[in-house]
């Protein structure tokens, strides 16, 4: 059984049909990429998968269990985590605290335990700080732990967001344009990090405009255009698909050479 299945997902905003009956599957251990021009409905699809939006129609299943209608925090508890296209860190908190929020699901201390600073809570806190620091190391930002998240560069903030999402120890990680705003060197590092994450057994679903990155690391590509799936398959196949080439006419070179 696929890890994530979407069936006939449809989303209307007033008169605008952002997604029109999209179905796909994400298999375990893969990196799957979603590409498509601006406004194709990629972010909307993410919002539906992680529960920020209830779709007008259609269902999404995780491990065969329907997750549409659940709240985002319930879906997160099932092992889905994400980053946001326009980086949504908690700017008034430190980098470490941001990642610690990602560890929230793995803590148990309640309001009263926290207020009384019970020994169990203190132990848990210490362990959480250690784990969070490890995730920061993984993305190479350990030395920024005590900096304010609002003051970092865009590339660094994307990485913090990645660490925060990893902090939830997801089985499925949704990345919305993780490479936008990064320079070439940062993008190369990102590719390595993403492969490492996949090799650890985390399934990745990412939206990305950087074709060379997508062609490089994706195992499977889904192409959306105006809310409709127009192609799906391994990079080599998608690259030569005439419909995809037609959509990306302006970027034909890019796709072909990517």
């Amino acid at each position, binding site marked *: 059984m696929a890890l994530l299945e979407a069936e006939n997902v449809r*989303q209307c905003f007033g008169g605008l049909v952002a997604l029109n009956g999209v179905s796909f599957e994400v298999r375990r251990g893969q990196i799957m990429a979603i590409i498509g021009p601006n406004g194709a409905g990629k972010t909307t699809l993410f*919002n539906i998968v992680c529960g*920020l939006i*209830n*779709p*007008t129609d259609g269902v999404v299943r995780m491990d065969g269990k329907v997750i549409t209608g659940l709240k985002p925090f319930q879906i997160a508890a099932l092992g889905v985590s994400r980053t*946001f296209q326009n980086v*949504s860190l908690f700017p008034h908190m430190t980098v470490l605290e941001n990642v610690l929020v990602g560890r929230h699901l793995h803590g148990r201390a309640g309001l009263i335990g926290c207020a009384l600073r019970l020994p169990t809570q203190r132990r848990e806190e210490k362990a959480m700080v250690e784990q969070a620091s490890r995730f920061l190391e993984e993305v190479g930002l350990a030395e920024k732990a005590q900096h304010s998240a609002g003051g970092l560069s865009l590339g660094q903030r994307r990485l913090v967001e990645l660490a925060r999402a990893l902090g939830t120890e997801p089985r499925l990680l949704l990345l919305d344009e993780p490479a936008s705003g990064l320079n070439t060197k940062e993008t190369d590092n990102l590719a390595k990090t993403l492969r490492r994450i996949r090799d650890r057994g985390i399934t990745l679903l990412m939206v990305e405009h950087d074709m060379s990155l997508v062609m490089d690391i994706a195992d499977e590509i889904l192409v959306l255009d105006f809310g409709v799936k127009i192609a799906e398959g391994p990079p080599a196949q998608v690259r030569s698909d005439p419909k995809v080439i037609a959509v990306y006419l302006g970027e034909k070179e890019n796709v072909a050479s990517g």
Partner: protein
Amino acid sequence: MVQALQYFFSGITVGSVYAIVAIGFNIIYSATGVLNFAQGEFVMLGGMVAITLASFLPVPVAVAVAVAIVTLFGCGLELVFFRRLRSHSILHMIIITIGLSIVIQELALHVWDEKVRSLPYFTGNEASSVKLLGAALSPQVIWVLGTAAIVVALLQLFYKRTLYGRAMRACSSNPEAAMLVGINTGNMRTAAFGLSAGLGALAGCVISPISMTHYEMGPGLAIKGFAAAVLGGLGNPMAAVVGGLMVGLIEAFSVSVIPSAFKDVAAFAILLAMLFLRPHGLFGRPSGVSVREV
């Protein structure tokens, strides 16, 4: 039967005032995303200014001038507190309106003292009455209902037919796009505050002969107007009219069941029940967007 009819008319009379307050909420909410806690104060100010002016001006002129003054006051508030601070969060803007509500009340207390005042009846006096379907009504009731009806009709025309009204709607549904097509969203917000304040003031004038004007009347009106706005679905000005009338009617009829000192409880119970059951309003359907990505 006649008793019920009497309740009915008193319900739709106060209801139309709630409706206008609810429309005021909606106008500002859709233009700025702010719930304006000083909405009731516009009503109070309209009444108070008109009463003061009426001592040396004919009533119609006093009302017109009062509405104009409060409209300018509303625009001024936007210019001073919100235009400068647009980058602040919605939370901060809401808190500012809360502060404004208190300061305006205190100001009114010092300018007009705590006496309950009222405008003279627009036609006739307390004693005169007109018969409608067997119920004896004060002529002022006709004034209130007529004014509310005209306001709603004109607003409808304004939003649907005029360029300015359409621009205002565009601003609320998609501010970035509106800005891109060359609409000055800042001016639209100022206009929204002015319009909302002016409508409130007008309501404050027409209702003054019936339910009096008092410096502390604002918050109570605001909460009922808000209940009406939620009934209709926040962001939908015309549905707010139905919401307002319903709140008014429920309040009026509740008097026959619970002591009238507690009739405000009814409005609040409606508000809570709505938030529980149908937060998107009686007519709206859930937009499906529970939290927008920021």
